[in-house]
C-alpha cells in the first residue's frame, strides 16, 4: 500500500520517524507532549490509515488513562490540592504529570507503529546494505528460509495428522511426534543447504571479487533535500526542547506557560508527513 514516504528513499522515513520518536521521548513538557501526541496521531493516520490508528487507540487510550490516574496515587507531591480521599491528597501537578507521561507513552507507541509500517524488511535492508553488505545478504537468506520452514512444518504436521492408520496410541507418543518435526525440519534444511551452497558457488559466491550491493532505491536529490530538512529541523528542535524542558518544572508548582517560537518549530517538524500527503492529495485532485 502506498503512503506519504513510499515515493522516497527509506532513509527519509527512517530519519523522520526515529528523530520524531526521540524528540517525543525527550520532551517532558505539557505543550510539547500535546504537540508530539497530535503529530504522532496525524502521522499514524497519514501513514497507516485511520482504521489501523483507531485500532491502536483502542488500547493506547486506556493505557494513558491508567498512567494518568496512577501517578497521583504513587507520588503525592505538588502544591495545588485538588481533593482528598481519606489520607490521600491528590494534587493538580501530579495529575498533569501523569497525563503528560501517558501522552508521551502514547506518542512513542504510535511512532513505533508508523515505523513498522514504513520500514519493511526490504527497506531496512536497503539502509543496512551500505553499512553491512554481509549482514544484508544473510538477512535476505533468513527471510527466505523462515516462510519455507513454516510451510514445511505445516506439511509435515498435516502428514502426521492425516495418517490415522498410524495414529499415536499414547499422549506421550503424540507429543514426541510433534517434537520430531523440529529435527525433521533441521535435517531437511541442511540437505537443502548443500544444494544452495552449490548454487551460490556456481554463481561466483566467494570467487575473490569484491562484492557489490544492488541498490533497489536510489538516494536522489529530492531525498537528500528532504533528509537535510528533517535533520536540520530535528537538530534545532532538540536544542529548543532542551532549553524549554530545563526551564519548566512540574513540582512543587508548575511553571506558567507562555507562547514560544519553539512550539512553532516543533509543529513545523511534525507536519512533514502531513505536508507530503497534502501535496499528493492536491496533485491528484487538480488532475480530476
Amino acid at each position: 500500500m502506498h503512503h506519504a514516504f513510499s515515493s522516497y528513499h527509506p532513509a527519509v522515513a527512517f530519519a523522520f520517524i526515529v528523530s520524531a520518536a526521540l524528540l517525543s521521548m525527550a520532551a517532558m513538557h505539557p505543550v510539547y507532549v500535546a504537540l508530539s501526541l497530535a503529530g504522532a496521531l496525524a502521522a499514524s493516520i497519514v501513514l497507516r490509515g485511520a482504521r489501523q490508528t483507531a485500532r491502536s487507540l483502542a488500547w493506547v487510550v486506556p493505557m494513558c488513562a491508567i498512567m494518568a490516574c496512577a501517578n497521583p496515587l504513587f507520588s503525592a507531591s505538588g502544591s495545588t490540592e485538588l481533593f482528598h480521599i481519606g489520607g490521600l491528597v491528590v494534587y493538580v501537578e501530579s495529575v498533569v504529570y501523569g497525563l503528560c507521561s501517558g501522552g508521551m507513552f502514547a506518542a512513542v507507541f504510535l511512532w513505533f507503529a508508523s515505523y513498522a509500517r514504513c520500514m519493511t524488511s526490504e527497506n531496512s535492508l536497503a539502509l543496512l546494505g551500505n553499512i553491512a553488505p554481509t549482514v544484508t545478504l544473510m538477512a535476505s537468506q533468513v527471510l527466505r528460509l523462515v516462510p519455507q520452514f513454516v510451510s514445511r512444518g505445516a506439511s509435515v504436521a498435516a502428514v502426521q495428522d492425516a495418517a490415522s492408520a498410524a495414529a499415536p496410541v499414547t499422549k506421550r507418543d503424540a507429543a514426541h511426534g510433534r517434537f520430531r518435526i523440529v529435527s525433521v525440519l533441521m535435517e531437511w534444511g541442511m540437505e537443502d543447504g548443500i544444494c544452495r551452497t552449490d548454487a551460490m558457488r556456481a554463481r561466483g559466491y566467494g570467487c575473490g571479487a569484491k562484492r557489490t550491493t544492488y541498490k533497489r532505491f536510489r538516494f536522489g536529490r529530492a531525498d537528500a533535500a528532504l533528509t537535510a530538512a528533517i535533520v536540520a529541523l530535528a537538530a534545532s528542535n532538540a536544542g529548543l526542547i532542551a532549553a524549554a524542558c530545563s526551564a519548566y518544572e512540574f513540582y512543587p508548582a508548575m511553571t506558567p506557560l507562555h507562547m514560544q517560537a519553539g512550539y512553532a518549530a516543533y509543529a513545523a517538524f511534525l507536519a512533514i508527513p502531513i505536508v507530503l500527503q497534502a501535496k499528493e492529495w492536491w496533485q491528484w485532485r487538480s488532475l480530476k
Partner: protein
Amino acid sequence: MAFVEVEGYSFAYPPAEGGATRLRAGVSDASCADERAWVVRDVGFQVEEGDFCVIVGATGCGKTTLLRSLKPELSPVGAREGSIRAAGRTLVEDGAVVQGFTPLESASTIGYVMQDPGAQIVCDTVWHELAFGLENLGVAQDEMRRRVAEVAHFFGIEPWVRSSVEELSGGQQQLVNLAAVLALRPRLLLLDEPTAQLDPNALKRFLFMLARVNRELGITVVMATHAPEDVAAYATRVVELQPLGAGASREEAEEKIAPRRKARREALAKADVAVEVRDAFVRYDRQAPWVLRGMDVRVRRGSVHALVGGNGCGKSTLLKLMAGILRPQRGSVKNALAGSQALMPQDPKALFVCDSVAEELHEWSARCGYGEDDEAEALRRFGLAQHASQHPYDLSGGQQQKLAFAKLLLTGAQLLFLDEPTKGLDPASCADASRIVRALADEGRTVVVVTHDLDFALVTADEVSMLFDGETACTEPAEEFFANNLVYRPNAHARLFGEV
C-alpha cells in the same frame, strides 16, 4: 576445436566410509557411489558453439556427475580419466583437474541450473535473486541495473520482480533461476534435469524460453534429462549415456490394459462410496477468494480415483479436505475409511523422520502392530533391501517414493491419498509407481491420487475427476474421460506406456 570436448572421460567417487556419503554433493548419484565403481565410464562427445545438446539417460546413470565435471566450482571429488575442454579452456587433462578458469571467469562463462527450483534460490525477493550473482562478481551498480532489467524483460519477469520467491510457483522459480544465471552472461549453460519437478504446462514454457536463449542469444546449452521427447523440437545434438526404453504408443498401452479395465469396471460397479464430498466451499482466509466452491465428488471403495486439472484449480485443497486436514466452511465431507487412512505428501521427505531406511519402516511398528518380518518383506518388495542402512535423503527420488509407499503400506491403511506421486520420477520409476498403485487397488484398497501426469493417470486410474475453478468439471471412468478430451490428454507416445 569444438566448444565443448569430452574425450574418454571416466569418473569414480572415492569409496564411501560410513556416514561420509551424507556430505557429498550430487544426491542422485548416491546409489552408484557405494563401491568404487565408475559412475561415468569412457564418455566422449563434442558440442559446437550455439548447439542445444541433450544428455540422455535414466536416473542414476551419471548425468549429474558428468555435468558437474564441466563446471569447475561444482566439480566432484574422485578419480578420473580422460580430458575435458570447454569454452577454449582445459578443465581436465589426462585424468588430472586443471585450473583453466579463474573462479571469476568460470562463474561468468559457465552457468549451471539444478533440478530443484526452490532449493537453489538464495535470496528472498526476485530482484535480489537476479542480482545475487552480479553482486558476487562485483559488477558496478549501473551495469547491474541494466543486466537485471534485461533478463527480467527477456523472461517476462517484470510483473512479479518485487515478489517474494516463496510466493512463486515451481515453474516461475525455475525461470528465475535461469534468468539469474543468464544475468551473468554465460557462454555455456549447463542444466541438470531442470524440468523434472515442473508440471506439464510449466515444463513447456520453461523449455520454450530455454530454446529462445539458445537460438536468439546464441548461448550453447547442454541439458541432462531422462525425458528427451520433451526437448526433441529444440535439440540439435543428443548424447546417450545409456539407451532408454523405446516406449509405446497410447493405443498400444490402452490395448494392453483393456482387459484389466473391463475386470475393474465390473468389480467396481457394485462398490459402495468410500469418500463423498458434497457442495463443499473452502477458503484459507475470510478475505481470501474461494478455492473450492460447490465441490462434489464421490470416490468408490476399492477404486483408483485420479484428480486432475491445472495449477490452482483446487486439487491439493480437495485432497486435504478429504483427508480431514481441512474442514469445509460449507457443505460436507463423509469418509467411511477415515480411521484407516494415510497421506503421501508431494515431497516424500515430509514423511521421513528417522536416520535410516530400516528405522523408517520400523517407526510405526508398535502403533500398527506389524513385525520385523513385515518390514523385511516391504524392503524386498520395493527393492530397498540393499539400502536398508542408508539415510532416506541419500536415496534417489524414485527410491524415496518407494520408501514412502512402503512406510504407508505397512500401516495397513485402507485409504491412501497420494499428492503428485510421479513428480521428478523417470519413466521406469513412474511405471513402478503405477504398478504399486494398481496392486493396491487389486487388494481392495482405495487410492485417491492428485496428478498432473496424464500418462500416469491413463494407465493407473479407474475414474478421473477434472477440477476447474473450484468445481468438478466432470467425473468419468478413465477410458471415457481420455477418449472425450481433445486438448487435455496424454502423450501420443511415451516411454511409460512401454513399461505398463
